[in-house]
């Protein structure tokens, strides 16, 4: 099939970007979206033009590296599907697609479709962990965990950190991402000791990075390739409220002594 692509081209973080139009023939419905971009890039290189820069790695929907907005939808038209798992059979011959990077103040564009998502890592560094230094663990079966809780924790932990939630949110909030981590640990006995300092520290970092506020649009969960539920945001809000009722203790724990 034939497609018309309007792709965001931007040389680097400092330069201005614009959409450039490309016509692509011979798109097979069995190609993935990224394979379609590969084919375009091979063609561009052969013509002596610079290929479109886009982020990708695992190409099986788990690493969270890929992600662009296709005609207004983060990760394209199919629900619960990353760009790399979206296949061209979702589109029709003659379609026109507008392809652009995640748009958020906290995600500056580095080149073409590539953005800097390191703000998400810094939210984790602020508190998205359980402080259990290597070697300090008791036997794995010492603390039974009800299957329901373990399953709920796993649902939250399935987040791949792609940033589609931020891209889809009208406020560019990272609430779903942050809440998923808070909620995972809130479900587990191991997560209890740091529970309230964690939520506080993570939310503080999120605000600091320039992400917007959550005003309950729900676009994040709709765009999420792993269908992370809005319930986690409710959990975060409850924990956050409780944490502010507690005395403000030092947020960051001491260095673990190995």
């Amino acid at each position, binding site marked *: 099939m034939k497609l018309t692509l309007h792709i965001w081209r931007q040389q680097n973080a400092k330069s201005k970007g614009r959409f450039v139009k490309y016509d692509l023939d011979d798109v097979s419905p069995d190609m993935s979206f990224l394979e379609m971009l590969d084919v375009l890039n091979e063609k561009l290189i052969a013509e002596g033009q610079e290929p479109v820069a886009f982020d990708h*790695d*695992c190409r099986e929907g788990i*690493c*969270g590296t890929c992600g662009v907005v296709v005609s207004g939808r983060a990760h394209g038209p199919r629900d619960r599907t990353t760009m790399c798992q979206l296949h061209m059979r979702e589109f029709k011959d003659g379609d026109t697609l507008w392809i652009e990077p995640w748009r958020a103040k906290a995600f500056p564009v580095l080149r073409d479709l590539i953005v800097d998502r390191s703000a998400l890592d810094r939210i984790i560094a602020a508190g998205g962990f359980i402080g259990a230094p290597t070697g300090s*663990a008791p*036997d*794995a079966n010492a603390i039974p965990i009800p299957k329901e809780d373990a399953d709920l924790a796993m649902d939250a*932990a399935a987040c791949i950190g792609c940033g589609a939630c931020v891209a889809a949110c009208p406020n560019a909030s990272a609430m779903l991402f942050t809440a998923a981590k808070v909620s995972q640990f809130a479900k587990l006995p191991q997560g209890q000791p740091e529970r309230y300092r964690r939520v506080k520290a993570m939310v503080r970092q999120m605000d600091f990075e320039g992400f917007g506020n959550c005003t309950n649009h729900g676009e994040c969960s709709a765009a999420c390739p792993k269908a992370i539920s809005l319930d986690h945001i409710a959990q975060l809000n409850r924990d956050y409220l409780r944490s502010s009722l507690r005395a403000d203790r030092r947020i960051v724990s001491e260095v673990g002594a190995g």
Partner: protein
Amino acid sequence: MELNAKIPDGPIEKKWEKHRFDMKLVNPANKRKYSVIVVGSGLAGASGAASMAELGYNVKCFCYQDSPRRAHSIAAQGGINAAKNYQNDGDSVYRLFYDTVKGGDFRSREANVHRLAELSVNIIDQCVAQGVPFAREYGGLLANRSFGGAQVSRTFYARGQTGQQLLLGAYQALERQIGLGKVEMYPRHEMLEPILIDGRARGIVVRDMVTGELETHLADAVVLATGGYGNVFFLATYAKGCNGTAAWRSYKKGACFANPCFTQIHPTCIPVHGDYQSKLTLMSESLRNDGRIWVPKRADDKRPPGAIPEEDRDYYLERIYPSFGNLAPRDVSSRAAKRVVDEGRGVGPTGVGVYLDFADAIERLGEDVIAERYGNLFEMYERITDEDPYTVPMRIYPATHYTMGGLWVDYNLESTIPGLFVIGEANFSDHGANRLGASALMQGLADGYFVIPYTIGDYLARTKFEPLGADHPEAVATVAEVEGRVKRLLSVDGKRTPTSFHRELGQIMWEYCGMARTREGLNEALGKIPALREEFWENVTVPGEAMELNQSLEYAGRVADFLEIGELMCLDALEREESCGAHLREEYQTEDGEAVRDDEDYSHVAAWEYAGEGKKPIRNVEQLNFEYVELATRSYK
């Protein structure tokens, strides 16, 4: 070169304990005076970097992705082994050790494997403490499943996303140390060369992949955790960015490369479907717990699967290997699939595939149970093929998946370059000629959490370090070397893209150095690869500039290295005149296609030493001694 594996003496179950006592310690206050570079943030790198930082060392960690959480380990699906014996089914450290040595077809080092089996139990404890949400039973205790090559249930898992959850655990520990200022993280930085000073690894040259800047980073020791080189085959289950560059560049500076031809072809991947295809997707081996593998009995049977009655189906693994059945080890299962396809009994539009059928399991357990166990895998399959595996059997075929070969390391995981340590898939150490399922995650975390933090301390305590600056002549020379290579790649200005070279190399490797190898074929490949490499350097085209984000340049550098690695793999395959594990030489097999080992002549590790441009590398040998597991013909019948 004399290879000293430094295996501690004493009985095997006491070696690691004794060694830990014998190793020198760095006192807590002094640890902050030492610095360590860790290249890689997968299971091995992230766990190693976090654990060393927790001890007090100053760590710098590098990865090529935009975040350490995206390392290729994230894609592991099926599970991680540990000798917990929670199922009371007769497992033990010794049995895991035994299975792994046997599974590796007696080409691994007993002492290393035993240590791995011992540490397996600590890994699970550590991960649970970090909040890894492993699958559990209703009683609240951990669940297990079985995996290929084992008759006990010792595999721990988190749905079909075990690698993701284990990596996030290690990543979070790493981020915690980043937050505390003990680790400096450098994402989007690619290591292009190690820096050796007075024969020791003292740093690396990296390219900032956003600005193109070449940077010098110096430290007291360097740890490579850069994963496997299986993308040499182009189509593989690896993430697209996985590469052999860090290992290869270290090889060319003096680190021996061990058993490069030992590459694992995984039996259950989605078959190739088009020539624009960019990668192959694995369907976890755990599916073989409940799926049954079959092809039609007759080569000309082109009926759809549902129309083929029981009596016309050949469940060939169950038929040939009755005691292991669909859970036969990977090398054995892969070759069996190749045989039925070669006989013309393959299925699907290309005829290159076999069925993996869940109909019986769904009838026995119900669709819900199957969905709970494998839902995300079924979904992934459906996304790619547009077929519903709940109603139509999956089609699968083997694909490259793992490299058992890698940089040679001694018991301390130190390479033949002093101060250069290698952990995880990047080293060669524990899986011999064939890795058992769910053992790579185990090895990566054992190396990172529990081995390297000890052995690095011993190295640091034993070594005297001169302070260094980036202006040291060796550092300056290494930067110049990298700069030269980058310039050269950009200046060829030919007609063919890096992808087209990579694809062609992959075809050569798959054909001649894949599931079955012959002397003639390998010699053929050894003619073709250098010719292709020559063409690459005359005719590749790399658009863009050095000092910018340039994905073509990154990729071209990796392809250039694959074009050299592929040749060493073929040479190694040629000179190992036996069949063992994943390495099947057609000249050495039984009538029904089972591998025939030659323990007399090849019970050793082949560790290749670089001898200079255009010179044949030197094949050094580390003899393997089997004191505990008796050398026997592997049989899964």
